[in-house]
């Protein structure tokens, strides 16, 4: 029974993705909606990304120093480890898990409320492809916002690491920079962006799926919102493992 339910969800999810591109509206309509979503997702998430990234950077530096600082390991190793971890894992994955909670629940509850208040039915009766009109701009906005937010997060993690290292006398900014540069390759940056784009798609599409298919009332909107966050996080972690194994 669980397998049947899971397969039903997966089938409906892919049908949703297929329907996004059938019977599309005028491009101008998507452009306006896309812009609104980018502002809502991108600007609206900057503060939480800023706070979390700074603290992740600071904590990473302290913990790395705690584990590595011996007479035989240069202090620049802290910068090397913190930088690589931030770019390869934390900036994309931690940021996406946080954004799954913020953006994912927002998308699911917005679409769910539109569903239970018959706003989606109103669009359908007008002859508008409600799925494409409502979901596609959100997914496209996530594909733009997630990489940008991830780059901002990676930068701020470095800033946090440098500030904490310097303030606590663990590593100077110069030593941190030397370490960070020593292991950096272009591919690490590309890998981070690939992950960010993938996570953006996963979170926006799964959350839209749960929100769009709500049946019932306010209680079900809450359940859909929770499901959107839970399944987005699980899928992001699964994709994290898959991408690491395939690309590294």
């Amino acid at each position, binding site marked *: 029974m669980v397998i049947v339910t899971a397969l039903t969800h997966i089938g409906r999810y892919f049908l949703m993705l297929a329907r996004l591109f059938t*019977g599309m509206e005028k491009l101008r309509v998507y452009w306006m909606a896309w812009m609104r979503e980018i502002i809502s997702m991108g600007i609206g998430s900057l503060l939480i990304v800023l706070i979390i990234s700074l603290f992740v950077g600071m904590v990473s530096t302290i913990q790395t120093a705690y584990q590595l600082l011996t007479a035989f390991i240069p202090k620049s190793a802290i910068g090397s480890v913190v930088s690589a971890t931030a770019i390869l894992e934390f900036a994309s994955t931690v940021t996406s898990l946080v954004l799954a909670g913020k953006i994912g629940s927002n998308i699911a509850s917005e679409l769910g409320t539109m569903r239970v208040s*018959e*706003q989606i039915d*109103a669009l359908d*009766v007008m*002859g508008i492809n409600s799925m494409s009109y409502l979901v596609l701009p959100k997914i496209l906005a996530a594909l733009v916002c997630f990489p940008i937010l991830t780059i901002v997060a990676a930068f701020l993690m470095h800033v946090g690491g440098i500030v904490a290292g310097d303030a606590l006398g663990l590593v100077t900014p110069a030593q941190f920079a030397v370490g960070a540069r020593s292991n950096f390759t272009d591919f690490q940056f590309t890998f981070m962006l690939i992950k960010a784009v993938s996570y953006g798609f996963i979170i926006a599409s799964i959350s839209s799926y749960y929100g769009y298919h709500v049946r019932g009332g306010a209680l079900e909107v809450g359940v859909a919102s929770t499901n959107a966050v839970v399944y987005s996080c699980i899928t992001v972690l699964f994709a994290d493992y898959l991408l690491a194994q395939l690309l590294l």
Partner: protein
Amino acid sequence: MSIVVEGLHKTFGSHHVLKGIDFAFETGKINMIIGASGSGKTVLLKCMVGLLTPEEGRVSFDGIDIHRLPYRQMRELRKQIGMLFQGGALFDSQTVAENVAFPLRMFTQLKEREIRDRVQLSLERVNLPKAGALYPGEISGGMKKRVGIARALVLGPRYLFCDEPNSGLDPETAEVIDQLIRRLTDELGITTVVVSHDMKSVLSIGDHILFVFQGHRQWVGTREEVSSAEDPYLQKFIEISGVIDVFASKPSGYNRSLPTGPIERRR
């Protein structure tokens, strides 16, 4: 163009909601689908506008089965349909004017000035000339319904479908909505289908009435015939609805005793 429903069956899991309903809706009139809660009238309405797909039977607009229409043709047909939802279904993030302008922006090439004029005309038609800048959260339930009607009619459709237009409204506001539907149906020459369980509304504006009971077509007739209907289920429905006194005190001409006339005068 006429709307005909033939042998309509709709189930949800094991629950058989519509059990072979047949009905021909009269063009240019107010057709009312009445029945108790859970009788299947809203499901019937949603099948008629294509929001639900029946397992059996057909819904035809001028002889064309809408459930067999290709997507593009269905989309064109839907431009001929306006629908008022139970809660208004206005878009929360848009002002009243933006809500009414929405179909014009989606389906026409009108310039902004023309859209503004059309929106203003539509809002004046439903007696809300100054509500354009307000958001749905700032207006009353009755105003939401009127904005919903304005949005439904802004493209000039041939059909207006209303799902429980009076639900959640006080009697006076409910009557305002009833008379608005009556006036617009007559003025615009549209075919209107109203789902309701409000017998006052039925007696006030209904031209052609379909009584649905447990998913069946139980009784069909006109407003004038309701009082003399011998169907026991309909009689009981009328009795429970509380308008039985209307029949008892004024067995003939009961509909004339209900307030009618211009909306402005009663407000």
